[in-house]
């Protein structure tokens, strides 16, 4: 049973509340989308869950085990992997070496579907190229592949589609599909509403650090307070 | 042709020496808004400290250079913190204070070491000869140190908290202080970095040229010239201008002789200032 449970989680920076009282459960093999305007606290939420930042209050429980404020490497050893908004590969080594390191780090062997994923993303023919010489889209894909390569039980994706061209965004769908086929659950933070609607049976809406809504996209996105939160952002942009 | 190449090489090594001096000078002006008339004093002091370490303590030369940097930086720090800081916004007072410090340093050195030049030789001698062209090995070392210093200073100013704090204080002192930046902490550090650079130059260059209580006098003039040419307070401008001054001086002296050479340089600076009053790096600098 590898379920991710977040209870009354809160994060403060000095006098500023980044988010508060966040609670949800991501069941094993589940898929959950998180949306919200700029600065809603989505990335910080991922950072706190994955142990990169300390929680101010609340609990994060992974598979029945309290992992709140465990250091990031310990959390990832327990099977929680994440991707980054900006790419996070080892820049001066080859694609192959990048993936190999991720596999080795997971210590659980290469997951089922890894080769298929590399083939689909077009990384297989470029295994020996240095990663930061790849085009941006491919670097981003490599970052996703590396998140999966450690054979995690849960992956947290931080805006996987940001900066990608429309055609490349299809790869994110493929990624989610392969990951779920492997029995891994996914939490995905994303701005691309089409992608969220397409993929996620359930979404959380975060606004100004507060959990505004939790439910199926069709229902949630029709709520007036959610629309207002987004319109606020549209007005700002 | 040989002469042309030789002049260029000489110009670059002069430029390296001037750049080391001008960086510190422009740093103090850029950050504190103070024209440091004691800059040449720290140059001399660096030379004498290094000399004393080698001659009296028997330290190896590289260590002596480090001691000289530390000593001049420490003196700069103390001077800024206890004297200059109180009057840092009064242009006339800082002028008097720094000029006074220069007189104290030069008279002090004259009293302690006497008026004659010291026997202080650079440990690396000789030159690389390529046909009629030669490059003194010591100049290569100075050039390397100079480039390292430029890079290090750039990193400190643009990539560290200290640098950000200093630039913020230079841009808007009141707001920076309201942000929690403490001039009493940061200004002495900036001054120490600058005087340490002057000391470093003295420790490196006086054994190549000569070391006597008069050698600080031309330093101020050269630093001034370089920094005005580069744009007061601009670090990149000072570094660039130093090499321009070095190369112009080398070419004009080689081709027109020592007197006209100096004239050419000054005329050039004058022309530049007529057409570009803010200097080479013509951007708005501090409105001091």
């Amino acid at each position, binding site marked *: 049973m590898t379920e991710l449970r977040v209870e009354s989680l809160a994060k403060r920076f000095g006098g500023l509340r980044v988010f508060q009282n966040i609670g949800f459960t991501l069941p094993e093999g589940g898929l959950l989308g998180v949306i919200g305007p700029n600065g809603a606290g989505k990335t910080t939420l991922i950072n706190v869950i994955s142990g990169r930042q300390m929680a101010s209050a609340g609990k994060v429980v992974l598979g029945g085990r309290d992992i709140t404020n465990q250091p990031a490497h310990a959390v990832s050893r327990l099977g929680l992997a994440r991707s980054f908004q900006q790419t996070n590969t080892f820049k001066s080594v080859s694609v192959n070496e990048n993936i190999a390191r991720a596999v080795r780090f997971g210590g659980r062997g290469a997951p089922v579907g890894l080769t298929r994923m590399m083939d689909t993303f077009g990384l297989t023919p470029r295994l020996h190229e240095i990663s930061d010489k790849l085009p941006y889209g491919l670097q981003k894909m490599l970052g996703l592949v590396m998140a999966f390569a450690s054979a995690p039980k849960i992956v947290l994706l931080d805006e996987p589609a940001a900066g990608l061209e429309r055609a490349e965004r299809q790869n994110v769908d493929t990624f989610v599909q392969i990951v779920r086929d492997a029995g891994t659950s996914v939490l995905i933070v994303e701005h691309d509403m089409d992608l969220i609607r397409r993929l996620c049976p359930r979404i959380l809406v975060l606004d100004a650090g507060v959990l505004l809504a939790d439910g199926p996209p069709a229902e949630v996105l029709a709520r007036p307070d959610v629309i207002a939160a987004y319109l606020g952002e549209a007005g700002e942009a | 042709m040989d*002469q042309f190449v*030789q*002049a260029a090489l*000489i*110009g670059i*090594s*002069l430029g390296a*020496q001037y750049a080391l001096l001008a960086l510190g000078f422009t740093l103090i002006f850029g950050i504190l808004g103070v024209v440091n008339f004691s800059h040449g004093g720290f140059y001399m002091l660096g030379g004498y400290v290094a000399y004393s370490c080698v001659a009296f303590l028997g330290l190896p030369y590289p260590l002596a250079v480090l001691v000289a940097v530390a000593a001049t930086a420490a003196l700069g720090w103390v001077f800024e913190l206890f004297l200059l800081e109180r009057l840092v916004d009064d242009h006339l007072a800082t002028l008097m204070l720094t000029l006074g410090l220069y007189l104290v340093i*030069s*008279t002090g050195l*004259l009293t302690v070491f*006497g*008026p*004659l*030049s*010291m*026997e202080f*030789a650079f440990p690396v*001698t*000789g*030159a690389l*000869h390529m046909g*009629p062209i*030669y490059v*003194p090995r010591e100049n290569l070392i100075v050039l390397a140190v100079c480039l390292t210093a430029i890079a290090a200073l750039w990193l400190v100013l643009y990539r560290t908290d200290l640098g950000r704090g200093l630039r913020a204080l230079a841009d808007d002192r009141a707001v920076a202080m309201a942000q929690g930046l403490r001039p009493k902490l940061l200004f002495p550090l900036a001054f120490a970095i600058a005087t340490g650079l002057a000391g470093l130059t003295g420790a490196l260059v006086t054994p190549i*040229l*000569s070391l*006597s*209580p*008069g*050698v600080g*006098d*031309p330093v101020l*003039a050269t630093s001034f010239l370089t920094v005005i040419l580069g744009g007061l307070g601009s670090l990149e401008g000072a570094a660039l201008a130093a090499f321009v001054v070095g190369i112009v*001086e*080398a*070419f004009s*002296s*080689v*081709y027109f*002789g*020592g*007197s006209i*050479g*100096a004239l050419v340089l000054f005329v050039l600076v004058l022309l530049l200032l007529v057409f570009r009053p803010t200097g080479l790096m013509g951007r708005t600098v501090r409105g001091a």
Partner: protein
Amino acid sequence: MTGEPTMKRQLFAAALLTLPATAFADDCEMKLGAMGPMSGGAAQWGLAMNSAAELAAAEVNQEGGVKIGGKSCKVVVVPYDSKYTADGAAAGSNALAAQDIHLIIGPVGSPEATGIKPVAARNEQVAWNASYAKNALEPKFPLMFHIGPGPSGWADAVIKRAMQEFPMKSVALIAPNDQGGTDIASVDAEAYKANGITTTEEYYQRGTTNFAPIVTRILAGKPDAVDTASSPPGDAGVIVKQLRLAGFTGAIGRLGGPGTAEIVRVSGGLDVLKNFYWFETVPTEDPKVRAIDDEYRKLLGKDPIGGTAVWADLPAARMTLKAVSIAGTDDAKAVAAALRTMPVEDPNIGKGFWAGKKQFGIAQELQFPFGVGIIKDGKNLGVERQEVKPE
């Protein structure tokens, strides 16, 4: 056991120093000015003036001081740093006049001589400049005296001696581009030409620290020898260092001021200097001349500052104080008149004569025996004494 006699001698010397002091009239003290650059690149020349004046004063004081109006007066030396500038010397003349000083040993350089002449004349002061200016003396300034002749008095002899060691057909002269530099270098150049040597003159801005460009320029003309003329010793040392670094192997000369020891030090030693010839204002290796330093140490209890220039300046200071006692006053005109009648002779340097009539139209220049020094292949052959004959 040598300790006891030595101690006795010291006690005796101390007694000599203190005893006559009681003989001075209570209210009588004569101030003697000493002027020259005492800081900066030419500092040792000014400090030499001061040392010479101090020694002459100490000698006279030891024997009861100068006789002024029948009283024995103690001589006190007042130094002034005229900074090698015309205004420095002019200001110095005034500053010393304000202290009732009528007699000045110094100043040194050509700019200083130019600056002090009219002011000292107005202040009625005797001054002894040591400059090599072409107008170091002028008949219209009869209170101005000159410590030694300029290059016209000795350059020819030095060049002839140098040519025996270092055959040369061309020489490049380098000097500062001010009056002091150009005056000497141009006279030196005339002397070289008179000996069949072609010359080029190269002048640099005073304050130059790095001579690499000028060295490059000089060497482009491929001269057999380079003469540093009256460049300050610190500058000359750097010039030598950079000439050798650039690969110059010919002889280097110095037909100008003293300071060879400093040049050796700054340039990096005899091996760097290699082939060098120079003029000394006094025969520096004559034991009698060297004894001056011992006497200085004995009387003043410290080392003299200023090197060989002290020896060259000393006769002027000694003769001035002697002239005060002859005249019985320190009034400048009376002292000057007494000086003119005195024979030119110094216990350490030897016999000389009054010169300057031909060059300046006024015979108020001390011409003493001088020296020519040679360093050959890194070996110091020493300084030879050159006797002089009246014009």
